[in-house]
């Protein structure tokens, strides 16, 4: 079928000389009350990103108040001492800005993106929201009801159901990560303004808070503005340093848990166990390993399940690194008939990444990707601010981002294999499925994957069934996404978008990412 009249050049081009790149320089300072300020001046970037990060996340709240921190963050913009919710949103809109307040597992943040010329009035609104919220009862009631409705919606979405059931399966009862960061029906139902205020005040300590601003800031005196807006922020409300987060695994062997969803045309698969916190010595080796196993397009999982077998639109794996040990998961949505063979393929890849060193070509491709994509990621102020927030949240050294690329380049095949052996445990994995059990239960039995539990009951007592993840699956895009959580957009159910060629993996798995 060769078109002989076509002339193309068979020789692959070689790269030119890379332009030197460094992560933007930042100025760090501190107000008298202890508030930290990090400023990244990025000439030519007139859309400024600013964020106040409070080190107080859903992982820090008591079990019984689960969801209070996330709801408190959302309620910050629902009324302050000077503005009601409508006056606040209108004032922000007149500046061309929207104030986002949100919380994830590790932190709460209030952020804004605004043209540099209107930064100061936008920061005034941000400070008002962060320091003087009133938690009006009527608005708190509404947000609580919306969260309860969102939990209902989550039950119908196979992806959210799988994610929630997976978390509830791999963590023990004492771990906050067992539940959604937004809380469960039982805990959310009892949330009120007082509980929200308590959750908010737990983090209200200037000495543990940081303002981060990035963009073209020429002529803008941020230390002076910050002093004016935050300088009178006094002593904390009895807040102390937050404690360690309990993250205990509950998986001791290999087993299958199926949430039966009759008529499902695909099975949502999650395979794995408890993972790791962000602060670990082998972070860079883990990142390279994650890219090879399930991060790159040509990762072992995606190559096998998608490009060889056609089982899925995309397969991947990764570690969600938090202050405590977040989950490790391999994931795919496969057509119902191939559920059992897809699971066997995933398990085989989890074994293989441990049993033999990766090839030189795999190692080079993964390292070159992570190193090369680093400057792409930080083209605009938002991601720069997000990465700096990550350093703050995880207590990482100031030079962590500058160190990232050389550290990735130094990762060896031995280090990758060691990371896989230390942190992936195919013999102690939960296999959690949401799909039509009637169509594949016999295949699962025959595959001998370990004990098999099929849950057909959809009653509220069924653990993991009535919980929700932090990302709202709402058509209105105004929910989640503080710098501490993954950057996945809320997924509008069937929001019309062009159909694309590539796969849906790489969402909340962070090991392929730059740090922070």
């Amino acid at each position, binding site marked *: *079928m*060769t*078109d002989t*009249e*076509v*002339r*193309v*050049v068979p020789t*692959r*081009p070689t*790269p*030119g*000389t890379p*332009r*030197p*790149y460094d992560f933007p320089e930042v100025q760090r300072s501190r107000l008298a009350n202890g508030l930290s300020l990090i400023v990244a001046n990025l*000439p030519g970037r007139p*859309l400024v990103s600013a964020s106040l990060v409070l080190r107080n996340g859903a992982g820090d709240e008591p079990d019984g108040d689960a969801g209070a921190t996330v709801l408190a963050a959302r309620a910050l913009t629902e009324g302050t001492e000077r503005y009601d*919710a*409508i006056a606040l*949103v209108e004032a922000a*809109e007149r500046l*061309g800005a929207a104030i986002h307040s949100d919380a994830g597992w590790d932190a709460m943040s209030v952020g804004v*993106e605004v043209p540099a010329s209107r930064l100061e009035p936008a920061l005034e609104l941000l400070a008002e929201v962060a320091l003087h919220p009133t938690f009006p009862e009527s608005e708190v009631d*509404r947000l609580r009801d919306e969260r309860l*409705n*969102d939990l209902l919606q989550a039950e119908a979405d196979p992806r959210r159901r799988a994610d929630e059931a997976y978390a509830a399966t791999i963590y023990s009862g004492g771990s906050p990560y067992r539940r959604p960061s937004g809380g469960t029906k039982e805990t959310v139902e009892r949330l009120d303004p007082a509980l929200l205020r308590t959750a908010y005040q737990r983090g209200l300590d200037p000495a543990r808070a940081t303002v981060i601003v990035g963009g073209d800031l020429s002529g803008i005196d941020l230390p002076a503005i910050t002093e004016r807006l935050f300088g009178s922020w006094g002593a904390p409300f009895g807040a102390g340093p937050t404690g360690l987060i309990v993250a205990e695994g509950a998986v001791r062997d290999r087993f299958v848990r199926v949430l039966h969803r009759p*008529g*499902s045309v*695909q099975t949502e698969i999650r395979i794995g166990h408890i993972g790791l916190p962000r602060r670990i010595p082998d972070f860079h080796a883990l990142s390279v390993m994650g890219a090879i196993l399930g991060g*790159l*397009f040509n990762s072992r999982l995606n190559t096998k399940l*998608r*490009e060889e077998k*056609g*089982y*899925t*639109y995309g397969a991947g794996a990764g570690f969600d690194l938090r202050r405590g040990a977040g989950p490790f998961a391999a994931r795919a949505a496969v*057509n119902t008939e191939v559920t059992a063979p897809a699971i066997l393929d995933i398990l085989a890849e989890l074994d293989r990444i441990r049993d033999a060193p990766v090839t030189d070509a795999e190692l080079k*491709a993964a390292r*070159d*990707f992570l190193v*090369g*994509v680093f*400057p*792409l990621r930080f*083209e*605009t102020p938002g991601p720069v601010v997000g990465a700096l927030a990550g350093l703050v949240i995880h207590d990482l050294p100031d030079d962590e981002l500058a160190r990232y690329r050389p550290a990735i380049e130094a990762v060896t095949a031995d280090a990758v294999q060691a990371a896989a052996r230390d942190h992936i445990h195919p013999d102690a994995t939960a296999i959690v499925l949401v799909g039509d059990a009637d169509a594949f239960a016999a295949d699962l039995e025959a595959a001998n994957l370990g004990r098999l539990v099929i849950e057909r009951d959809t009653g509220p007592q069924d653990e993991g069934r009535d919980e929700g993840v932090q990302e709202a699956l709402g*058509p*209105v895009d105004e929910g989640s996404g503080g710098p501490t959580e993954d950057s996945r957009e809320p997924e509008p*159910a*069937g*929001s019309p*978008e062009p*159909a*694309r*060629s*590539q*796969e*849906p993996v790489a969402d909340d798995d962070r090991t392929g990412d730059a740090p922070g």
Partner: protein
Amino acid sequence: MPIQPTVSFTDERLANGLRLIISVDRLAPVVAVNLWYNVGSKHEVKGKTGFAHLFEHVMFQGSRNVGKAEHMALVQAAGGTLNGSTWLDRTNYYETLPSHQAELALWLEADRMGTLLDALSQENLDNQREVVKNEKRWSYDNRPYGSWYEKLQGHLYPPEHPYHHTTIGSMEDLDAASVEDVSAFFRTWYPPNNAVLTVVGDVDPDAIRRWANQYFGGIPANPSIPKLGDLSLPPTLGEERRETVHDKVPLPRVYVGFRAPAFGDPRLDALDIAAQILAGGKGSRLHRRLVRDERTAQDVALVPLGFVGGASIVAGWATVRPGVSVEGVEAALHEELERLGREPITDDELARARALIETEELGGLSRVEERADRLSMYATLFDDPDLINRMLPRYLSVSVEQIRSVAAEVFRPDNRVVLTYLPELPPADTAAATEDDTSRVEASAESPEPAEDEEVAA
């Protein structure tokens, strides 16, 4: 004072008709390479729906000098990101890389534009057919409310119009696609004179020109690219169309859809602003009334979708809170939309919408990938890449009366489709329900619509 980012660029054609747009930006050491082909799902013929998108997947399966999936491997190993997408009017392919890797992307794009068929095999086509079928399941069929967009598009465009079917197509048609179909589609729609190549970033324009000629110059044009027939449509639907769907959903949701002016028509600019005022965030009318004040809806949305062939779509929805009258929410939705056609918006509403659009434009144009995509888009659809610099002024010049006027034209009962999604009935009740509800059976079984996904390892 409005901030208007100006994008400067050059615009030329190679001898074979490939349009080349170059825009230099040295702020970051990155480059975006972006190709738009003037072919989309509107070019598909009966029995071949979903083919343009399946074809796009095949474009990643190798060419004369590139192996299967090696396109992704080479770009990612160069530190780049990439993807492609298909939509009603067009198909695009794009890579963003460290700027010293620009030549690689040009070489890769040229190799598949020239020699895709050298690597075409039944095995690769079958593999990507399965992948695309799983994409359809993942994006539409296995999602709550997942069928709404296909239904809406089917109602808003008549069966003989090429926008009647969705980009993802049907399972049956995907099954019917053959290697011969791929060859014919490639030879017809993928010559250089049906494409726009845009390069934006930290590059030497002379080097880009040299490479473009070196790599793309030997690919012959197709002198006889077919022209689509007249796609014009009556501006309104002429009737209200309604459908009730019982689905695996806990909360009812009311979708509305309207025919709207075609993409490029200044009235669509006014409608964009109208949508911002109606449902753009927490300050908007619908959010305020239905979500905040009356608390009858869990969420609301209204989105214009611009298409060049005859009519665009403006689609919206409200998710109904438990125990609330679905009819009441629908009535309130219509009331707010129609009120916009009767009463002028306030100056403050217009000022707020303008400020938000300005920020949005500033954000969009700050990334080389987005800038390249918009240059390709305006060149492909309107032969006018400079629209990238004129859209913001166009938005900022929209008047209160233009918004009222377009709302009155579009938000009319005889121009709307209403889809009501209700929770599935318990088994005992289904017999009764089926009698007056013909859509029930297909509701959860089939539900395509354009898909969304994220790029790999991003």
